């Protein structure tokens, strides 16, 4: 099997386990749904300022649900020492990282697909025309989020305080992605011209590329003792 087939094998394994247990997806979905519902009661959807606060609400829900999922993503690897099982195999550490990253990315995108229509309905937003742009923002932000999150989840997995350690390490690093996602989503919802959006999209794309490369290269040192 070549490098990419082994990456896919790890993704397949995570998908099979998650579809069987639904532990990660159900926790992420319920949490993000609760956040949207609570904010829906806090802010009246009919108010004029709703387009200014809605992007923040959406990305708070996605960020915290994503962190919940990242914390769980290495639980399967910790049980029975499975991460060591992967490390014993003749497989590049980068392939393990990419496999876990793609799994996390898929699960987060899946949650966003279910959450977004609910969010739009709850906050009475009209997004049909700007949907392609919103999907692009969601994809770029989620790639950056999962890239950094997978590395740090792997690092935190070897510690006893992983539930605390992950957010402490993760949020400061991922803040540029969240800010860019909130700002660009706001611009799209307000119907701002494309030139005001381009800078944020470029920031997201640059962050994705840099962090994917850095995390891919450093994962080996993070998981080895």
């Amino acid at each position, binding site marked *: 099997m070549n490098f990419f*087939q082994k990456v896919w*094998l790890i993704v397949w394994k995570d998908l099979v386990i998650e579809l069987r247990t639904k532990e990660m997806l159900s926790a992420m979905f319920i949490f993000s749904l609760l956040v949207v519902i609570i904010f829906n009661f806090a802010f009246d959807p009919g108010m004029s300022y709703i387009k200014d606060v809605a992007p923040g609400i959406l990305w708070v829900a996605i960020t915290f649900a994503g962190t919940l999922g990242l914390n769980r993503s290495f639980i399967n690897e910790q049980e029975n020492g499975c991460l060591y099982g992967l490390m014993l195999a003749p*497989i590049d550490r980068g392939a393990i990282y990419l496999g876990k990253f793609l799994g996390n990315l898929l699960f987060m995108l899946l949650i966003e697909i279910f959450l977004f229509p609910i969010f739009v309905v709850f906050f009475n937003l009209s997004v049909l025309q700007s949907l392609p742009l919103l999907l692009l923002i969601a994809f770029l932000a989620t790639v950056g989020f999962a890239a950094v999150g997978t590395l740090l989840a792997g690092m935190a997995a070897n510690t006893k305080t992983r539930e605390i350690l992950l957010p402490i390490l993760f949020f400061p690093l991922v803040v540029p992605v969240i800010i860019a996602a909130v700002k660009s989503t706001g611009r799209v919802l307000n119907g701002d011209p494309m030139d005001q959006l381009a800078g944020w999209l470029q920031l997201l794309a640059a962050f994705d590329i840099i962090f994917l490369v850095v995390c891919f290269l450093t994962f080996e040192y993070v998981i080895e003792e």
Partner: protein
Amino acid sequence: MHESNIRQPIIQVENLIKTFGHLTALRGISFTLNRGDFFVLFGPNGAGKTTLIRILSALLHPTSGRVLIDNCDMSECAEELRQKIGVISHHVYLYNNLTAHENIVFFARLYNVANPEKRADQVIGEVGLIARKNDLVRTFSRGMYQRLSIARAIVHDPQIVLLDEPYTGLDQHAAQMLKNLLVKLHQAQRTIVMITHNLQRGVEIGTRLAIQVKGQIVFNEYQHQVDLAGFEELYFKYVGN
């Protein structure tokens, strides 16, 4: 296997030192194992035996010294060498929410095994779990976990098998099955390194016996040079009761 290969060195450990902060786990360990050796390592808790196995399996880097496998330095060709090594440890390295068959096929694919489905059936059969192959591993008893872990370790037919207390959790039947499997692997000229606290079992099955105390190998001889009673006496002399 060609007869000329049999006495060739396959594992060369040279002045291995491993420290964890202030703790020194290995203090200059050196030995050479030939192809087909069955090396049994004894020692008290905290002697550094598991650290040695973890370095031999390329899970840990030594602080200094080196390990050569098939004349290739592990620090330079670890990925290639992992293909030649199978590990059975306290950890079973199995996914609870995959079936026994899915687990073994997964690892067979990672190890580039040709026809992984068929090979998985074969090794699951060898460890006596074929009737449970489609059950989720989380439903298994501790002994069954360990048996499937043996199947996982040999699925790629490794040249070297490393075992860290492999009898943990096994009932009499499973222990006999493991013993038979190890004898079979040994007859097939596989090199075996086993850590155990059970002196009788180790002396009975090993061809080379060693004692590790406080990070150093203090005894290392071929089995025919010692008997069980003599070895027990030696062991307690080195370990200090």
